[in-house]
């Protein structure tokens, strides 16, 4: 590498630095806060960026022992797991039909999926709360399992339609000429080829439902039913007294499942994002 090329490369990294600091500093600061002793945390003359008086796990143990954090996490996992699996199944068959089959109304329904994909959740939460009441699901995590597919299904369908289109039609037709039925061709030929798309759909659906906030906040309220995001943001704040250490510990632990997925499947997140996953 010539000296000029090397210095350009170094310059690029220097220019990237402010972006990286902007992106990562909040996480760094949250971690530091959650590990600090209260004495140092609330010392107005201490340097907030570092831990001087020794780290402690007190905030984490308090969070796990004295609050319902584990229940909220369990609720989040249950809601996310059921909503994600149901949505991906519904979306897979719908996307297959929309991208491969010719039938009456296929174009209209395709447009309908795209339109609902764009509808923000904040437009519908008021009337949906009424529907939830009528269904007898008020203040129950089942309200979330029922409503999350309303944004997951359009999203996954749209994502999967793109992937199914990349599977050559000829592959499927060959199998059918050789005597396979359409269902067998779908199950044995198309789906295996579209596995990267399915992984992507599952990842994004999982992330979207884990991160969902407005429905969870509106449809559930009791401590046994709420999800991690709602629990940490509303139950850990009582009156005017904030327990910042526990709050930050909760925010970090509540993000752990997503971070784990993210570390293992980073490339899928990037490719899904460029394939049109936007929410």
């Amino acid at each position, binding site marked *: 590498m010539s000296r000029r090329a090397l210095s350009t490369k170094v310059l*690029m990294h220097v220019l*990237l630095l402010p*972006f*990286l600091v*902007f*992106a*990562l500093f*909040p*996480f760094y*600061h*949250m971690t530091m*806060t959650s590990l600090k002793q209260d004495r140092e*945390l609330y010392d107005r003359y201490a340097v*907030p960026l570092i831990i001087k008086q020794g780290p402690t796990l007190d905030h984490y143990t308090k969070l796990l022992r004295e609050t319902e954090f584990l229940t909220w996490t369990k609720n989040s996992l249950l809601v996310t797991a059921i909503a994600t699996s149901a949505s991906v199944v519904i979306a897979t*068959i*719908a996307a297959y*039909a*929309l991208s491969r*089959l*010719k*039938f*009456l*109304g296929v174009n209209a*329904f395709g*447009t309908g*999926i*795209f339109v*609902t994909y*764009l*509808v*923000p959740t*904040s*437009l*519908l939460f*008021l*009337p*949906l*709360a009424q529907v939830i009441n009528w269904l007898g699901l008020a203040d129950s995590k089942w309200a979330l399992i029922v409503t999350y*597919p*309303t944004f997951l*299904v*359009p999203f996954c369908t749209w994502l999967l339609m*793109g992937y199914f289109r990349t599977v050559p039609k000829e592959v499927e037709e060959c199998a059918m000429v050789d005597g396979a*039925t359409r269902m067998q061709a779908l199950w044995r030929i198309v789906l295996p080829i579209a596995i990267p798309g399915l992984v992507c759909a599952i990842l994004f659906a999982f992330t979207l439902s884990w991160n969902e*906030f*407005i429905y969870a*906040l*509106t449809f559930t309220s009791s401590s046994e039913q709420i999800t991690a995001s709602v629990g*940490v*943001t509303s139950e850990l704040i009582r009156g005017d007294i904030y327990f*910042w250490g526990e*709050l930050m510990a*909760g925010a970090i632990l509540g*993000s752990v499942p997503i971070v784990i997925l*993210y570390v293992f499947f*980073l490339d899928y*997140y990037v490719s899904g*994002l*460029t394939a049109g996953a*936007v929410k």
Partner: protein
Amino acid sequence: MAIGTLPARAAPARLPWRTRVRELLDRERILGPLFITPALILLALLVAYPFVMALYFALSNSFIGRPSQFIGITNFIRLWDSDAFRQTFQNAFVFTGISVAFKLVLGISLALLLSQQLWFKRVIRGAVLLPWVIPTALSTLGWWWMFNSLYSVVNWTGIALGIMDPPGPNWLGQKYYAMAAVITVNIWRGLPFFAITILAGLVAIPKELYEAAQADGAGPWSRFWYVTLPMLKPVLAVVVLFSTIFTFSDFNIVYVLTHGGPINSTHLFATYSRMIGLESGRIGEGAAVSLYLFPLLVFVVWAQLRFVRKQAY
């Protein structure tokens, strides 16, 4: 008659039941509708129907636990006349306009940097994308702490660097500072989406165009202006349209950071609609607030269908 028709009906029945089902499933005109039925039922019951209900609510004086009457567009007019709603309306445009503009400019810059030869390319991309995958409500709690009136690390840094006079601004308690704070968090959370999507657009630009431009004597700036930007236009249009609708309808950041305050100065449609509809119980008026989002949604859908889907097919 009955005797005459019986054999005709019995003939296909002689085929095993499973074969007949299989044959039906092979027909596109039957399998297609069958496959979209679950999605159709779900969306009809939990999207289309609530939407119609929202329309009805907005045109009624609906209140929690009370029968309602049709009152026409009174809610919309009353809202338009109220200062709090006007403030919300203005906030939504300020918030969206500034956020999207910053995300676009910073997103293009970041994408250009990410497209260069880099060490630890994967790690850097992973770090850049992180704010976008973490639950927004939880990461906003971190920002809430960073903007805290007594222990703000933002102010501490500002004072340490000599940019701010102690004690520094009370970010979430003062009108314009609070708006600046929610906009900052929105940019922080939305920038990765812009950067990564634009990066994909950058990578797709054929190298020959740059070589040709260079041969014609174009410098880096004119190559960016005459090659990169025009080639990126479709991607930028998609990103801006999507981001506009989701920034406009944002809820999480404002709800966690400021709750719409101080004195409604950061309320957006979604947070104001929740306050009116659920916290005060005036469902009709609350539904009308969120329906003010609807014209924008229609415009974005129209633009997307027109410009974006044309390219997809």
